[in-house]
């Protein structure tokens, strides 16, 4: 299984760079993961989404879809695209250190 080093710590990832074990993630890693996605600094709304992603993963075993995020995170879909351009569900999942959300069928 591939690994990568984030904030000086080695973590397990899949072929696409998603964390495979959310428990290996710490908040200190988020800024570095965000920069890899072209997000220079994490604002409060970013953290709202990150904490929501972590909570959903812990409760349901998968990260939410963009629509699910828009309905339940308190951040609108439009804002989500401003915060995490190029696909909020995937980008936010990477920054939050959770596995790739299961897509819809």
């Amino acid at each position: 299984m591939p690994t990568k080093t984030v904030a000086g710590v080695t973590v397990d990832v899949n072929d696409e760079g998603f964390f495979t074990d959310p428990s290996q993630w710490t908040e200190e890693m988020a800024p570095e993961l965000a920069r890899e996605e072209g997000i220079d600094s994490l604002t409060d709304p970013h953290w709202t989404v990150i904490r929501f992603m972590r909570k959903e993963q812990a409760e349901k075993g998968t990260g939410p879809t963009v629509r699910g995020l828009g309905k339940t995170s308190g951040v609108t879909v439009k804002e989500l695209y401003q915060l995490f351009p190029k696909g909020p569900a995937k980008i936010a999942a990477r920054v939050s250190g959770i596995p790739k959300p299961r897509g819809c069928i």
Partner: protein
Amino acid sequence: MAHRIIILGAGTGGTLTANRLRREYGTDEATITVVDQDDQHVYQPGLLFVPFGLTRADDIVRPRHEQLHDGIGYHQSPIDRVDLDADTVHLGDGAELGYDLLVVATGAALVPEETEGLTGPGWGETVNTFYTLDGAKGLEQSLAHFEGGRLVINIVDMPIKCPVAPLEFAFLADWFFQDRKMRDRVEITYVTPLDAAFTKPVAAARLGGMLEERGIELVTEFNTGEVDGTGGRLVSYDEREVPFDLAVIIPLHGGQPYVGRSPGLGDELDFVPTDPNTLQTAARPNIFALGDATNVPASKAGSVTHFEGEVLVGNIVRFLAGETLDGSYDGHANCFIETGFGKAMLIDFNYDQEPVPGHFPSTVGMPLLKESRLNHLGKLMFQWFYWHALLPGRDIPGVGADMPTAGKQLS
């Protein structure tokens, strides 16, 4: 005492479940009541053909109550909510129905109003959908009078009912305009939030190739944020634009609103969390669900509902007898894909096995993932099976709930 069984929804899943259960139980063993808000049962696969003048809207609608066998009660009313703690359904007409066992079979609802601009100027005219009877009829007029220009087919977001139907619409549009000798005056563009033409890799590659062969442009990873009917353009959340003269939109889907009014029953989109193998809901042991209303990771399609029905009814009987449930539903789906010029493809798959080439149901049979006239005839014949075998809850010979592997080219 007779079991009180309430079935919410008299579409494909509710009807076939009621009819199968009626055969399982004598009238002294169980009362079966089905609830729906209207008396129009639409053969939904037929909606695809209406815009192209290949079927008449009247020919795909029958009364719901007539599809239910003798000894099944039919209560026509909107549903207000389900009180899970009291095992009671509250109906819009004020009636309260107590149950020992509840089946949720109310399908998916379209929510076009959740997309900015979609139901604004142009809705029902230059912006329409074939996912409703009225929309399909409107598109028949729009296509008949289309003088050329940009036709755009757009899936706003997944999940949707019958994920292959928008592709079929694109293929049929290509045929339709060729048939009218005006294909050179029509640009067809297929705009999807997915990263390919379809969800499953092998089929996506084949279907994407078929779009290309037909000169249909494919725009992927497009998350529609706004439909501008006045300006004739789709705008994505990341601010890309696709212009159109006629837009065929597959709106967002959700579960039914009453699910949201029933605390504990549904998820954030009002779909009902359901065990993918037993079809018992996560909400309560005495509530089961099937078809488009659930969140199971299978296509929202009639074939899925049909195959689920066999497992579901067996499990209801086991549950009411106090026995262990059978977790055998494998996600089997089986879909014809109309490709134009009197041909169609067939795909057959389940939770674990994506659609691949080969034959169905065995080494001899209908070709899989390949265009053929036989598949087209199969698709047309299916309408007869739907009313006369599937809804009455009869097994179709050679086509069972478990996905067959003989005949498939498995790597």
